[in-house]
């Protein structure tokens, strides 16, 4: 009996030591091989379909004479980017995309902040409201686009009928170049709210309730409480939401396709960067130009992300210094 216990304890100690060694050990050839067994499936797929295409995208964008069927490269240079720079359609796509981001992003962020604050304050109906506001997130963007196409219609569309009650003349949202971009913006805001509300709610949850209580005891009005306590504490998550929303709206495509039944709207009024890329690539078979516009999109989105990253580092250093 006694011997058994000793053997068992020694075995335990041995196993314990072995595990501690495994957790803190320096890598060896053997442990690397073992890790590779776990990593290989992931690395193969990522290598072929994420790392190589990343390099390949930059390569393709530099091919000025490229035959994709034979994979023959004629020449390499900045030609594609020069062509893009002088292409009025590309300029239009950039203008539309920037307008979309600059108008949709602030509206979405502000509205979702207000809604999240409202939901956060309401006790009994919070879950109910959250469920509803989040619905568009799980819905297929194409399906949403089709429904809005029906809502926006000149004849029989719900929106125009509603405007009619107020004596406003029907607006041809989808065929009038003046309103087509506004129609797309409405859809983007409607769909973008859900995720931001969830993120704001998570941010609000992280804030210690005691701050608000103390501020109230000190006689702060709700508005003062928001501008001096909740607002500043929400700043980091707000920056994240602003960047996320901007990136999403830089890449709008599905909505346009469904809203205008496979076109970019009346006289290209809703041509976004992604739609331009799709058109050059899929419709006009101009692979190299499409790849170059993809690189432009990447630079825009990438610099935005890096700026945020810089902001967070800066902030962390500030907090650490305090």
């Amino acid at each position, binding site marked *: 009996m006694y011997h058994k216990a000793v053997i068992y304890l020694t075995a*335990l100690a041995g*196993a314990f030591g072995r*595990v501690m060694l*495994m*957790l803190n*050990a320096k890598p060896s050839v053997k442990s*690397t091989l073992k*890790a590779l067994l*776990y*990593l290989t*499936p*992931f*690395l193969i*797929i990522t290598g072929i*379909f*994420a790392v*190589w*295409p990343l390099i*390949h995208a930059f390569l*393709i964008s530099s091919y000025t004479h490229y035959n*994709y069927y034979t994979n023959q490269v004629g020449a390499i240079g900045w030609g594609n980017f020069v062509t893009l720079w002088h292409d009025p359609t590309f300029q239009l796509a950039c203008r539309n995309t920037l307008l979309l981001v600059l108008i949709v992003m602030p509206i979405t962020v502000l509205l979702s902040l207000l809604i999240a604050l409202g939901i956060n304050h*309401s006790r009994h*109906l919070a879950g109910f409201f*959250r469920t509803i*506001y*989040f*619905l568009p997130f*799980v*819905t*297929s963007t*194409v*399906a949403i686009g*089709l*429904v809005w196409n*029906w*809502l926006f219609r000149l*004849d*029989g569309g*719900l929106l125009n009928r509603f405007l009619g009650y107020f004596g406003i003349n029907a607006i041809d949202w989808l065929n009038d170049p003046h309103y087509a971009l506004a129609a797309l913006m409405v859809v983007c805001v*409607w769909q973008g709210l859900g*995720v931001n509300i*969830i993120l704001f709610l*998570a941010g609000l949850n*992280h804030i210690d309730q005691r701050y608000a209580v103390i501020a109230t005891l000190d006689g702060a009005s709700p508005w003062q409480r928001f501008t001096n306590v909740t607002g500043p504490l929400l700043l980091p*998550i707000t920056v*994240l939401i602003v960047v996320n929303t901007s990136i999403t709206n830089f*890449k709008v495509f599905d909505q346009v*396709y*469904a809203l205008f*039944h496979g076109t970019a709207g009346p006289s290209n009024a809703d041509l976004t960067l992604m739609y331009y*890329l*799709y058109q050059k*690539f*899929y419709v006009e078979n101009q692979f190299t130009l*499409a790849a170059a516009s*993809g690189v432009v*999109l*990447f630079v825009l989105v990438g610099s935005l*992300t*890096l700026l945020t990253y810089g902001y967070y580092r800066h902030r962390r250093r500030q907090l650490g210094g305090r």
Partner: protein
Amino acid sequence: MMRHYLAVLTRTFFLTLGAVLILLPFAWMFVTSLQPAATTLTIPTTWLPKSLQWLNYWHVWQAAPFARYCLNSLLVTAATTVGQLITSILAAFAFTYLQFYGRRTLFGLLIALMLVPGELLLIPNFVTLAQFHWVDTYAALIVPWLASVFMVVALHQAFRAQPATLYIAAHLDGASDWQYLWHVLVPTTRPIITAVALLQVIASWNAFMWPLIVTNSDKLRTLPIGLITFTTAEGANYPLLMAATVCVILPLLILYLGLQKYLVMGISTTHLKG
């Protein structure tokens, strides 16, 4: 006290108004789908149609191979989600528990890779698929999506949050790494695994641009592409169109209402800690 009730009332009023605006398109879609076909443009659609045309759904099912689209969507969604889960769980385990050369560098590269928008990879991936002769096959819809950097990073965070004593205890009981992973780690982190899987199911089910580009034949179409094809064929027959749209949306709505808390948790945790 009076002011307090007034505030509650205004808040609830505006929240309800917003909720109505969010629900309105869904309600309108559903109501339209039950109107008599083809009359919608001549007679204004009413909120309470006199006779409900449930047969519209049957007509949709007959008019286009929606059963086929549905099966394709199910297959692609299931294959990509399960595949991603397997590759990501294995990789995240290696990053959390195993020692190997270049671990930090590799992980740093993955984080950098997360910043790359998938849209940039569209064209080169298409070229790769063309060289594999995979365009217009199921492989094109599934294989490129079998690994997800986002999922590896999210699972790595979840695995790292587990106490090391759990790992030690499992080893004391004689479990190998492999057994620990599948019998201890995966069951204990099931909520976060469900959450990331759910996010992937939503993404796969609703994916549009990639399937649009890599498939041509009708028999490979997924639901969103089938829906667009149906639109082109049916034109302005909105009752049938909306019935088809309801069919596309419904499965995810049900899934969402059932697993909502995982989804909310998934979005909150993966976005906040990044």
